[in-house]
């Protein structure tokens, strides 16, 4: 078992995202960092169900197969993440119209 697998890379992506949310000053970059967190989580989840040399459990004969449940769950998360990002960007447009800035330090 190597340390370079989907689970660790997913967790590292989540941490990078959190670092970004805390340090970036631009609202759009913060929202993109939240997206990175969700991408990391999706990778983490899909890797949970990974089985070495497993196949996709679709029609046909198979003995060893990967767990399909995390993959189906992640389809939902993709949709949720998409709608949250869309709404966040729409709100950012409104904030820019009202305050004429995207810098969190000036929005206080």
């Amino acid at each position: 078992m190597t340390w370079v697998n989907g689970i660790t890379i997913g967790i590292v992506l989540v941490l990078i995202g959190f670092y970004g949310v805390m340090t970036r000053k631009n609202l759009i970059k913060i929202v993109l960092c939240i997206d990175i967190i969700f991408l990391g989580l999706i990778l983490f989840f899909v890797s949970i169900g990974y089985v070495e040399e497993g196949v996709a459990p679709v029609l046909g004969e198979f003995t060893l197969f990967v767990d399909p449940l995390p993959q189906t769950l992640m389809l939902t998360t993709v949709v949720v993440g998409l709608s949250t990002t869309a709404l966040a960007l729409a709100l950012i447009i409104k904030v820019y119209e009202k305050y004429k800035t995207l810098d969190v330090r000036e929005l206080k």
Partner: protein
Amino acid sequence: MSGILILLVAVPLMTAFLLSVTALPQKVPHTTLMKLRNVLSVSGMGVLCVILAVCAPAALSGHVLTYTVGGWSPFLGVALRLDAFSFSLVVVSVLVCFLALFYSIPHMGYMRRMGKYDAFYFLMVAGIVGVFLTRDIFNMYVFFEILSISVFVLITAGEKKESYKASLKYLILASLSSALFLFAVGIIYASCGSLNMDYAAEGMKSMVEENPELMYVVFTLLLVSLGVKTSIVPLHFWLPDAHSIAPTPISAILSGIILKVSIYAMVRLFLLCGWQFYSEVSPIIAYTGAATVAVGTLLALVQKDIKRMLAYSSISQIGIIVTGIGIGTDLALQGALFHVVNHALMKSGLFLCAGIIAGQSRTREISKLQMGAPGVAVSFVVLSLGIIGVPPLNGFVSKFIICYGAVQAQYSGLAFIILAASVLSCGYYFRVIQAFFKKKKRRKKTPMYRVSRFMSFPVYILAVLCVILGLFPLIGLQIADLALKMVGG
């Protein structure tokens, strides 16, 4: 019989869809559309009430209704479950949402003309009811997201300048908290193999024995993520903005119901780990709860804006509930569950009152408030006495039980903090009540702010419910006791 459960989620979703369709026709005059929307929303809520009335005898006699969506085995599929605990919270939230809907009929002119407000309102109701009913942890996350996304939109319904900023702040924090929640769900799935709470509970109990470090990670992730949503103390800073800037009916629901949704999730998920693990970690919850009480009360004292003050008061009341959950004895938990219901009724009533009073005196600054309609002022006094905890009202009963439980469990310091906070809360509520009784200045004649019956009746109903629950607390306590058995079992 139990197939009726899916309707509790499906009816608000369907209503939201129908309401969003009413925004389409171009040539119909919008007064007709508004009437159509009112009829649709009221009938949607009415259907929900009927379904709950059908479920009531079974749920209140201690039965558990379960329904597996799509006929999958509960191990893999999504199960819905209605027991006394979820039933009591669903009833309270449907009631408060119904009353706030009446309040918003004359209130939300512009936003409703666009047809967005009602659609998102019902999406939010679907999210609330979904979180209460679901038995699947991932599904709980999905319903939380439905709920939060519609709340982000509803906060901006007043179209004020600050509302966009408050909503964006809430959105960023809520997304981070749901990311942490999802992370915890992933670890639970990896180690238990199922996301159904019944099966996950067994897996988590064996996880406590075999791999306690991982269990602590899961607990911390859940505590932080639900802590952002309930606004326990180091994570509370988004709440005053979002709750005070949102339009009044939405503030009432945010403070009254949506904070309770995450408290419900807390109780459900933490008790899955088993009592042994819970008693190890519960002091952390109890002390953060006490810190929340202290900070919320002290910050409420210095506020000048009435809705901001109510928002900080919510933080301190939520702290009392969290303390009760953290103490973890049967008595304290019973008090906490009763206080959840009480606070939902009282705080939503107070926010609705504050909306009317602030509208009548044309300012939200506490020192410039005026009495306005006497009925509303009386309800405000009753509701705020309830929150402070004056004997014949419901807040007294639940606070007293939590304090009694705290002393019994050797947490006398926490009981002292709760009592001190109650005394201090007189300070900020009486400041508002004092403003009612000052001399009236002659003002220039301005057109009267019309309080329609739709706005004042919900307030009266909530105030009367508080008095009833205060005079006959056994109704609430018996249900809380039954609910507690359901959670433990």
